[in-house]
């Protein structure tokens, strides 16, 4: 319980805290209980289930460091190697897979003071920004100059630009602008041994494996991103929403597949199962007979967006869709697109979570039916709703919301673990990827071997080579957890 940690503060701070304080200054280091408490969680539902009962999911950190420069980050890593403490990078803590949960002997590395907009290069369409800048503030600065990053995760207001890359995120406009790995063209990072590394921002290069991807998606296990240069875009002239009512999911999947394979690129493509459709349409208008809701948005040059919308509309109508005159479902999405929180359930004692996976078009029907059936049999009152967003020529992201009713902690945690076990196992069995854009953290460790096969060993060897003392966000991505001899 937190109170036990709070009351056990007089057992002596480690001597290396003085060295750390010499690096970041008095104001850049805290060992206060209230700070350690605040950094004991991110927004992982499993962490929420724990802290609402007064328990941490992992450990409380020893200290919180808030460096102001890349040099300070490098010196912190040098101290970590010398003294054997773990360093866990922390942006705004919006992650949902326990990627920033402290382990034993951890210093949390809050990057939010590395938050400067460095350069807008309007000739080459590039923006350079420090990793700790808030995502919505970054986008607002670009918008003020007529540009957009094109990366609009639901968490944009409560995440950092560096966090987007570290977790290999995807935004709601990914079908047009790509995912974060399509946007990062250069970066600076600090390796776990304290050395700095720059990947110069260029459109492309053919000089061996891309070093950028040692960091984009590595969740801080191979070092810390301190600055990034992102590809940016002119703000679109228009946005043209299209609300469609499909007779079935099979018809809708076929239409979206045909749309993407015809090289049509909506900014937004969201398809909802009947459960989630009904929440948004109440079965009214065309949805009385065609219960499956699909929202598309076409954007960019006005003339081009008009053509893309018209061609897509033809594909969808041929698949039985009815175009809805009522844009209310689109307007509702637009209003709530950056709100991820469900106070009715998450602040109370429900056990609610979301699981996103990737599947090929051919596998989506089975992924949906089998996972849904496996989860519904867990409890008579479980909610299971699904939508598909982030569509590709080859497949789509399947985003599932699972909500167990109010339960005692022991039973809720047991069923929650079973939800994950069933969803991830069936996903692997059907050839999907266990994560589309939330990442791995420590929550998905049990399924990484199934995801990567022998690749997990390769990843561990890369980690061992770059971080032999295992100081940089240890135990995530199913990499080796901290061991006694890592503590120095």
């Amino acid at each position, binding site marked *: 319980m937190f109170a036990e940690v709070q009351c056990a503060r007089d057992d002596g701070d480690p001597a290396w805290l003085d060295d750390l304080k010499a690096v970041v200054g008095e104001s850049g280091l805290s060992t206060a209980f*209230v700070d350690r408490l605040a950094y004991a969680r991110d927004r992982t539902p499993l962490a929420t289930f724990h802290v609402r009962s007064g328990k941490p999911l992992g450990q409380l950190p020893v200290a919180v460091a808030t460096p102001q420069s890349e040099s300070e980050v490098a010196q912190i890593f040098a101290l970590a190697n010398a003294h054997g403490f773990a360093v866990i990078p922390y942006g705004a803590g919006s992650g949902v897979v326990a990627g920033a949960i402290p382990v034993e002997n951890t210093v949390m590395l809050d990057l939010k003071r590395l938050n400067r907009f460095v350069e807008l290069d309007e000739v080459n369409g590039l923006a350079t920004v420090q990793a700790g800048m808030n995502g919505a503030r970054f986008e607002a600065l670009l918008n003020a100059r007529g540009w957009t990053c094109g990366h609009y995760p639901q968490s944009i207001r409560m995440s950092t630009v560096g966090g987007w890359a570290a977790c290999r995120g995807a935004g709601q406009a990914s079908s047009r602008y790509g995912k974060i790995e399509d946007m990062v063209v250069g970066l600076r990072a600090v390796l776990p041994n304290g050395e700095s590394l720059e990947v110069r921002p260029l459109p492309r290069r053919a000089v061996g494996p891309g070093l950028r991807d040692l960091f984009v998606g590595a969740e801080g296990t191979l070092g810390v991103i301190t600055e990034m240069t992102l590809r940016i875009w002119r703000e679109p002239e228009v946005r043209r929403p299209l609300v469609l009512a499909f007779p079935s999911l099979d018809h809708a999947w076929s239409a979206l597949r045909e749309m993407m394979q015809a090289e049509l690129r909506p900014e937004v493509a969201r398809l909802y199962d009947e459960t989630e459709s009904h929440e948004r349409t109440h079965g009214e208008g065309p949805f009385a007979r065609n219960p499956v809701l699909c929202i598309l948005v076409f954007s960019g040059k006005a003339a081009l967006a008009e053509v893309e919308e018209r061609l897509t509309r033809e594909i969808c109508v041929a698949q039985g869709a009815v175009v809805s005159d009522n844009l209310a479902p689109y307007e509702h999405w637009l209003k709530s697109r950056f709100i991820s929180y469900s*106070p009715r359930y998450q602040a109370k004692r429900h056990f609610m979570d979301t699981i996103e996976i990737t599947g090929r078009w051919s596998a989506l029907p089975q992924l949906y039916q089998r996972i849904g059936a496996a989860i519904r049999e867990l409890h008579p009152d479980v909610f299971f709703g699904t939508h598909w967003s982030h569509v590709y020529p080859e497949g789509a992201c399947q985003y599932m919301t699972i909500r167990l009713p109010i339960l005692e902690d022991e039973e809720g945690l047991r069923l929650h673990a079973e939800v994950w076990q069933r969803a991830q196992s069936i996903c692997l069995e059907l050839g999907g990827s266990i994560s589309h854009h939330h990442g791995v953290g420590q929550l998905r460790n049990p399924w990484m071997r199934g995801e990567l096969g022998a690749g997990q060993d390769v990843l561990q060897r890369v980690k061992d080579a770059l971080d032999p003392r295992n100081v940089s966000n240890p135990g995530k991505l199913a990499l080796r957890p901290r061991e006694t001899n890592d503590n120095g």
Partner: protein
Amino acid sequence: MAETGIALLRICAFCPNPCRLAVPEDEADQRESRTPSALAYLAVALNDGFVEPDGETQTALADLELAETCRPHCVYEFDVPAELRAFARKQWDETADHA
């Protein structure tokens, strides 16, 4: 939403802080513990007996500068700083009464 008091703070405590976009880059102290959600969780933890009231928690709950900065951006239009002030008053007044 019509919640007030600890019920309102409980909602804020588990909210992921979308209001944090109000925090300017120049803010020198960006610690997570100063965000509305962290302060609200501290209050909930005190209320539920997970954390003991002491000088440190009292000082933390009195630092509402960042919470005030974020207040206009609350998705639920809550006045979290006002609720935190009311909670702290009740918490420490009652503690003093019992002392």
